[in-house]
């Protein structure tokens, strides 16, 4: 849902950019695509964009790397009370920065603008809980993964749902509109009745009032929920396609991508991401989920 709005916005945007560009004439641009009105927005983007990114050497010599992170997604990327960036993604970012020997400028990004920041080279790397998808991989280059993400289902202790087959015909499942859980259940289990809510808070209230048998969402969300609320258990910790979270760089920035990949592999030898988990995620998830969530050395089990 969110994404489709974003795609619409982008399309309008690209169209508007083209319009303005054509008003402005060929100022500074090689012509060639200017009269191909039929070309899609994406094509126009790639043909007008020169090299937007900075290579590894350019970053090193500038002495500063720009990293896009979330600033309000506790415990992955957030800002603590002293104004310092913290979290699982940031812990890793700080290590990259240290090994690169440069200063860092964290840029606060939103889910909807992450791709755009990379496509225009406004940041060098995005480390913002970025789930690897085919669609995104067409626009940015993903490095090796450092975390797993899947769907999870939480239900009351009185009747823990361990498999979706346990649901009876009149059992309903709560989902939040626009999430991968909604898409997945609608596609793969069309027979399950869904109760859809717009916000996290409403979904939570519905589950607590016993309006549905279970709640499906990103497993990181439901695990955190079950740990914070007594009387609820995550009966299905992994459901659907297993996705991964990975760093991303601008499309084509091979030097930086290769360096990050070699860094992730090297960090695997010292179990860096386990240490990262223990430093940043244990408070939320406990240690039970460490092996499920952490991807070490870029190798998914």
């Amino acid at each position, binding site marked *: 849902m969110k994404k489709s709005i974003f795609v619409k916005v982008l399309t309008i945007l690209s169209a508007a950019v083209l319009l*303005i560009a054509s008003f402005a004439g060929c100022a500074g641009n090689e012509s060639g695509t200017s009269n191909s009105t039929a070309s899609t927005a994406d094509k126009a983007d790639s043909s007008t964009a020169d090299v937007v990114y900075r290579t590894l050497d350019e970053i090193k010599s500038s002495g500063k790397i720009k990293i896009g992170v979330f600033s309000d997604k506790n415990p992955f990327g957030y800002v603590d009370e002293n104004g310092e960036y913290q979290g699982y993604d940031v812990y890793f970012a700080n290590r990259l920065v240290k090994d690169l020997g440069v200063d860092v400028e964290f840029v606060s990004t939103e889910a909807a603008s992450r791709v755009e920041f990379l496509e225009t*080279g*406004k940041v060098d790397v995005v480390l913002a809980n970025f789930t690897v998808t085919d669609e995104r991989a067409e626009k940015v280059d993903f490095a090796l993964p450092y975390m797993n993400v899947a769907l999870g289902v939480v239900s009351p202790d009185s009747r823990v749902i361990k498999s979706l087959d346990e649901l009876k015909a009149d059992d309903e499942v709560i989902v939040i509109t626009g999430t991968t859980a909604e898409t997945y259940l609608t596609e793969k289990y069309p027979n399950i009745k869904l109760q859809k809510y717009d916000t996290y808070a409403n979904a939570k209230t519905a589950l607590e009032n016993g309006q549905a048998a279970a709640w499906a969402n990103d497993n990181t969300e439901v695990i955190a929920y079950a740990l914070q609320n007594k009387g609820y258990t995550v009966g299905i910790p992994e459901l659907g396609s297993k996705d991964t979270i990975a760093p991303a760089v601008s499309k084509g920035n091979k030097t930086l991508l290769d360096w990050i990949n070699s860094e992730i592999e090297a960090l695997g030898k010292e179990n860096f991401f386990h240490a990262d988990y223990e430093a940043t995620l244990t408070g939320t998830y406990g240690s039970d989920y460490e092996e499920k969530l952490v991807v070490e050395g870029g190798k998914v089990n």
Partner: protein
Amino acid sequence: MQALGLDVLFKGSNLLRLLGGLWKALEISLIAVALSLILGVLFGILMTFRNPAIRALSRIYLEIVRIMPQMVLLFLVFFGTTRVFGWDLNAEAASIIVFAFWGTAEMGDLVRGAVISVPKHQYESAFALGMTKSQTYFTIIIPQAVRQLVPLSINLITRMIKTTSLVMMIGVVEVLKVSQQIIEANRMTSPNAAFGIYLTVFVLYFIACWPFSILAKHLERKWSN
């Protein structure tokens, strides 16, 4: 305090960070407001001209601003200029450009309305006294129009201040973004923080916008004599 989640406000430098965020929002909006007031008056006068080319162009400009959501304009200026021209505008500059672009159009429309609402006999009397066109505008028409403009432009200014919350989309950390950061960072320890923090943000916006209302009242009173 606990129930409202206000204790979170005094943790670390949270309150200072909120004030810093407010400053960022005001910095962007006030520079944009200043530009909009100056350019808007010029644009408004331009719009009262009868030249068809000028009318068509200003019509297009005004419609673009009305139709395009500010968010699209922000993306357009921040990311679009990099894509098309290779400019690397920083996020604050892009925000100021967008808000000034928007404010100038709206201000211009207000000025146009105010100028044409000045009765025709005011122009005719001025011309009959032998005043030139520019003399008429600057000494007769504009001073009268400005009085009508004050309440309307105050409305525009406060709207611009409040709309700055959009700039978080291009990475500017302003007051609303800081408040979201604080709420999220404390969601385990103080789940009620949202109420107290948003209440604080409300008060901060109020403090930022109120002086403009006072100024408007003051000017209206002064000019009514």
